């Protein structure tokens, strides 16, 4: 055990910090969940890419700098510490990319990854359907073989596609063998969102931004080269992605450490009105963020030494999603009557806390609801019977 960073890790941190201090926009960008903000965030992704900070842990040929997983964590810490913009590339670089690295052909990786990393192509996910949420294996959208054109014709509807209204591509599961048992007969497709037969309709989110979309597919054509993994093996391919999402890559500790620091700052400013109960909650929120960082450092060490992340990624997802809500609830309580403001002349920090709270509330719902995660923990970590 050595909880000090190595000289090369420290050098990496200094380099990241220096670049971020110079380059992170001084005025926050408008929300990336609006058309205008999305375009500005796309430019920011390009800037990160050009400086080699977009995808630090990837191979150089795809735009990375072959950083270790530990260095990636360090970058994330520095990124959130510097108040870096939201990463609209996240669904591509953190959710699809790990799956591409595992299941993609060389041609797919060469063609897709660099454009994903530079923000040239931005990706939405297409898991949920109107009647398939937590029960993902209940999807009904289909893909039918089109031999003449060398690909598949897709039909059906996807929903809750984050930033789908603005993205270029979507990845998701479609049923290719309707006769197969629920968890089989699905295939993982990479779908162009601006192709004939694809209709994207923006859907407002709880916070009012058009951060969601539903995607209608009517004989939308996807060529064979955009099938990821084997035909009818999509479930296994998709599970690799959801494991990354819940486990490690989607929510790095840096984000929560930065939130906890802002909470401590807010507490100091509002000290006069903080009762002892609120003080206790601030302390707990701060400790939770530290706990999450330490837990992640343990996991990263294990993965760097050849271990893997399995069902315990569900333990992780339950923790960070519920921690994030508690932290924001504590901040809103500290804000008193300003806690209801989500913008406007008197909001100051209050607006960001309310927006953050609305975002945090989605945490226990997306990426598999926490009820499902608790079942996974009970069944696959503790070994309790499914039935």
């Amino acid at each position: 055990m050595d909880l000090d960073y190595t000289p090369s890790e420290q050098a990496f941190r200094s380099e990241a910090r220096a670049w971020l201090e110079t380059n992170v926009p001084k005025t926050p960008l408008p929300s990336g969940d609006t058309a205008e903000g999305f375009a500005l965030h796309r430019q920011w992704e390009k800037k990160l890419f050009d400086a080699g900070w977009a995808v630090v842990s990837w191979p150089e040929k795809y735009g990375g700098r072959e950083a270790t997983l530990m260095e990636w964590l360090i970058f994330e810490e520095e990124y959130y510490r510097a108040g870096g913009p939201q990463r609209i590339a996240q669904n591509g670089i953190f959710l699809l990319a790990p799956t591409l690295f595992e299941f993609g052909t060389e041609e797919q990786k060469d063609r897709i990854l660099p454009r994903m990393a530079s923000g040239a192509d931005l990706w939405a996910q297409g898991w949920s359907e109107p009647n398939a949420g937590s029960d993902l294996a209940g999807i009904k959208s289909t893909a039918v073989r089109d031999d003449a054109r060398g690909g598949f014709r897709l039909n059906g509807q996807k929903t809750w596609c984050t930033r789908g209204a603005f993205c270029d591509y979507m990845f998701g599961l479609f049923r290719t063998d309707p006769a197969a048992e629920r968890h089989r007969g699905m295939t993982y497709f990479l779908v162009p969102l601006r192709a004939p037969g694809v209709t994207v309709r923006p859907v407002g989110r709880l916070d009012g931004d058009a951060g969601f979309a539903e995607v209608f597919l009517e004989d939308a054509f996807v060529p064979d080269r955009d099938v990821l993994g084997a035909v009818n093996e999509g479930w296994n391919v998709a599970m690799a992605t959801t494991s990354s999402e819940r486990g490690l890559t989607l929510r790095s500790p840096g984000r929560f450490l930065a939130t906890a620091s802002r909470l401590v700052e807010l507490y100091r400013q509002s000290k006069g009105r903080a009762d002892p109960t609120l003080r206790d909650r601030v302390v707990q929120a701060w400790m939770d963020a530290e706990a999450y960082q330490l837990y992640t450092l343990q996991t990263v060490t294990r993965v760097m030494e050849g271990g893997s992340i399995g069902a315990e990624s569900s333990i992780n997802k339950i923790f960070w999603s519920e921690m994030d809500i508690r932290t924001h609830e504590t901040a809103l309580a500290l804000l008193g009557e300003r806690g209801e403001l989500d913008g406007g002349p008197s909001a100051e920090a209050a607006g960001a806390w309310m927006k953050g709270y609305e975002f945090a509330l989605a945490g226990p719902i997306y990426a598999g609801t926490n009820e499902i995660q608790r079942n996974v923990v009970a069944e696959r970590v503790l070994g309790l019977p499914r039935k």
Partner: protein
Amino acid sequence: MRFAFTDDQKLFRDTVRALLDKECTADVVRKAWDPETNGRSPPLWGKLAELGVVGLRVPEAHGGLGLSEIDFVLLLEESGRAALPEPIVETSAVGAPLLAEIGDASLASAWLPRIATGNARLTVGLAGSAFVADAHVADLLLIQQGGDLYALSRDDVKLVPEHSVDGARRLFRVIWDPSPSKRVASGSAARAVLARSFDRGALGASAMLLGLGRHLIDVTVEYVKVRKQFGSPIGSFQAVKHHLADALVKLEFARPIVYRAAYSMSRTPDAASLHVSMAKAYASDAALLAARAALQCHGAIGYSYEHDLHLWMKRAWALAAAWGDASWHRARVGELVLG
């Protein structure tokens, strides 16, 4: 940055686990409750000493292993898992390094070798606690009075028994007259070592609580797999699953906090008090939640005195309260972080 134990440390843990599985069964823990006996087992203590556990923190020059808190934390976790009814925290985690650090060479030479061989048990009474555990079997009592530390024998003191909810824990108030001849440390040197000793005790209790929590979850998992109601194992019901998942989540996040506190005690002393307080707050809450989940999922059988569950549950309650409870430690974190 490498946050993992070495293969040697894990092997040592496995060895201690195997010994305790065999020698510290539920029957042994239950016998430790017997008010007709002193509740302690010299053979078990001797076997732990033979393995090097009891003298792990005793310097090699005095016959111990001379290892650190980082090496010890997994073994204390195993001691908790077995609900070991011995003063392992008082003697080995706190007493041994305290004796080695106070700079009284004759006291160290007299006691450290005896600790390492399992021929002496120690207890400690530090400021902030009215009760001294295992004073009835302690060959040496290290008692703080104000800013000074005194080394006493049982003949020097009068013991007033108190009654812990955990019958295997024997608690006492220690009545005595401070005399300068028994004083072994004072002034600023004493202050530093006493503060460190308190942190070591809280860390030791935190590690025990991790193990207690894990045992409470494990036995409950086994029970709900076999207990059937409505024609199904109750462990297949979501309400039961979610109780146990919640307990596991809390415990799994307490674990790295406790391990980090052990690291800080050993390597980064300036951060140790903060990190130990985080550990004790987290581990106490985690073990108490595991105890609640375990009792609820066992139902009435877990509420019965004949069942073993309460032996572990009550140790969790006791150690959650000892060495500063969660609220006390969160308050200390607050002072250090929020000012």
